[in-house]
């Protein structure tokens, strides 16, 4: 299954809704999307992973890369994820300590920490 991406603005943040598989084959598309958003001046990103079926380390790497980019502009990158098998991958790589992970887009939009 392929990657699907859709972008919208909500409460001053940019929400990227991701669906399908983020893997070594499709991660470059997600990377392009994030780079483009930052280049266009969107520094507060929310990546909604609720529709993601599969995530590998290449996908993690792209998210980490996105985080670095927004941080360079004092921005933020928040994740929305409640799927246990996806959360597990963030946990075993220690990335739950790097990304703020929320249970809904609403929660992420309102977060101020």
């Amino acid at each position, binding site marked *: 299954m392929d990657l699907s991406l859709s972008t919208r603005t909500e409460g001053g943040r940019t929400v990227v809704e991701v669906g399908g598989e983020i893997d*070594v084959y499709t991660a470059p598309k997600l990377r392009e999307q994030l780079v483009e958003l930052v280049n266009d001046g969107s520094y507060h990103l929310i990546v909604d992973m609720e529709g993601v079926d599969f995530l*590998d380390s290449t996908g993690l790497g792209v998210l980490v890369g996105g985080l670095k980019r927004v941080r360079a502009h004092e921005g933020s990158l928040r994740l929305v994820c409640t799927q246990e098998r996806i959360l597990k991958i963030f*946990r075993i*790589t*220690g990335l739950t300590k*790097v990304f703020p992970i929320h249970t809904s887009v609403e929660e992420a939009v309102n977060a101020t920490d």
Partner: protein
Amino acid sequence: MAIVELRFTALPEHVRTARLVAAAVARRAGVAESVLDEVRLAVGEACSRAVGLTRQVGADEPVTVTLDDGDGRFSIEVRDAVPQPAVVGAGESGGSVGLPGPSGANGMSLDVAESELGLAVILGLVDELDVRAGADGGSIRMSWPSEKGKIGDDPLGL
């Protein structure tokens, strides 16, 4: 002892084929449904890594995945043909090879995370693991319990 071997040109698209094959063969070998996600992810990581290494050095050699369901375990070996002068070192079963894990992750720099995330995922998922690097290429060997015989029996009776 039934063996399936997949060999492919080092391209990202074929990593998906490897995941597909590993999950299908693992299921038939009697690996528990709950573990199939792990198998799929781990073999994908090992293959992504092999593909990346091969492409970094511009090599033509294929990546080889060997699936074996003998002796009550389902094992997968992923091999590349890129000479690695002990870059990675050999990790013993479940051993830590100085990679970012849940424990040491607190003050972890993002650079470390990005460079060896693949191995970190494998280390986090797989208990029985053996990572080797040598002059003739690297290999990652992983295994899981299986119920060989229950499903793998031959119903054809040829």
